[in-house]
């Protein structure tokens, strides 16, 4: 699930954390992570599973419209 890191490289406004769920269980609990990968964008959009690039960018950008 490196797509989010590639996104960060493209745009200075984008930052991207890969978070190991078991080491940071307080965050995994906060965002209700029951399966991985799970992506949280601006704490508004949740993307479950590994999603192809076009779908991932489309879903992620919905965080800006909210």
């Amino acid at each position, binding site marked *: 699930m490196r797509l989010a890191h590639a996104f960060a490289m493209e745009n200075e406004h984008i930052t991207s954390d890969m978070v190991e769920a078991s080491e940071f269980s307080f965050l995994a609990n906060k965002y209700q992570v029951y399966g991985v*990968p799970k992506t949280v964008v601006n704490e508004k959009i949740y993307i479950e599973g590994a999603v192809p690039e076009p779908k991932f960018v489309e879903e992620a950008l919905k965080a800006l419209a909210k």
Partner: protein
Amino acid sequence: MALIGDKDRKAIQDRLKELVNPVKIVYFTQELECQYCRETRMILEELASLSDKISLLVYNFITDKAVAEQYKIDKIPATIVMGEKDYGIRYYGIPAGYEFASLLEDIIMVSKRDSGLSEKTREKLKTVKESLHFQVFVTPT
């Protein structure tokens, strides 16, 4: 004892031949009370030793607080993969298993200074003018 085995080391060294520009790994740790901090540091040290193009900088999360704040690091172990500039690429937790493979790919991506994304995705990302923060939750296996 090395965390990266002989066979893996050779395979990694082969991949690292693709490196073009220097890559800087900035690591924040703490000696006490951090699960996997020591192992993460060992992995990064072994990885950095495999290529002249990779440099590793290690900071203490507590005593180097100003640096941690500069990079907006709020938890450890934290690993930044960057070139001359910081792209906002972070790993929180040990980069083992699949995450190690991701780390290796990130290092190659940053070294090439090319995200490898499609033109369509690049165009869409250009429209982003405000902060967009991704948190991707993963497990090592």
